């Protein structure tokens, strides 16, 4: 029996900490990683704030889950997209975001950063291509 690999996209639209959505999404991604599907994460709107580097939650008494995004490559998340317009509207650039590395298990090919800023047309395409979109 051949394995059917589906394209799962996790769509993230909320800022971290203010609501539970960002953390819930991340947990579901980590748990779902065991199912050998092609997983991508899409960050649009306030979701782009999830990837901002240098987060330090010591002062607000909440868990800082920002470092956990950097392990997504280990969980075989291969594609991480950020909507360029959302970034620009918030005065941010890719330099403000964390880098997430990925290593291909079979080829041992290493990619330093899989975080990719894409334009709206590409977001449209990627959403169309996905078999399932999980919204957070």
């Amino acid at each position, binding site marked *: 029996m051949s394995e059917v690999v589906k394209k799962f996209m996790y769509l993230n639209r909320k800022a971290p900490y203010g609501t539970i959505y960002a953390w819930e999404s991340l947990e579901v991604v*980590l748990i779902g*990683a065991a199912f050998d599907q092609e997983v991508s994460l899409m960050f649009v709107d306030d979701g782009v704030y999830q990837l901002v580097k240098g987060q330090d939650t010591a002062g607000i008494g909440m*868990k800082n889950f920002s*470092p956990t995004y*950097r*392990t997504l490559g*280990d*969980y075989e998340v291969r594609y991480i997209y950020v909507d360029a317009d959302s970034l620009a509207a918030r005065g941010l650039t890719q330099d403000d975001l964390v880098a997430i590395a990925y290593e291909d298990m079979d080829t041992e090919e290493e990619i330093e950063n899989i975080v990719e800023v894409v334009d709206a047309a590409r977001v449209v395409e990627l959403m169309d291509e996905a078999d399932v979109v999980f919204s957070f």
Partner: protein
Amino acid sequence: MPIVVDGKTFETDEEGYLSNINDWVPGVAGVMAKEDDLELTEEHWDIINFLREYYEEYQIAPAVRVLTKAVGKKLGKDKGNSKYLYGLFPYGPAKQACRYAGLPKPTGCV
């Protein structure tokens, strides 16, 4: 059930994981291992320390697949396989070693 290490009491959850990761001292691993009838060797400590470093960096207890891969990268291919890791931690390298290391139960473990 709380565990006692050198006369100090540590709170744990219902599955025996430390309630507060910051409470951890190396003696915690020793006491937990003793309850499991396991003697901790240098090889066990390599994994426990590795897990603590991993948590420090990523704020997460890795799933067993991720642990295996990461151990292979850091400590060598001969250690980065499930046979070796299950040999050390028969109750499951991620679950058991994370518990000894004071980490929460790995995300995705049931």
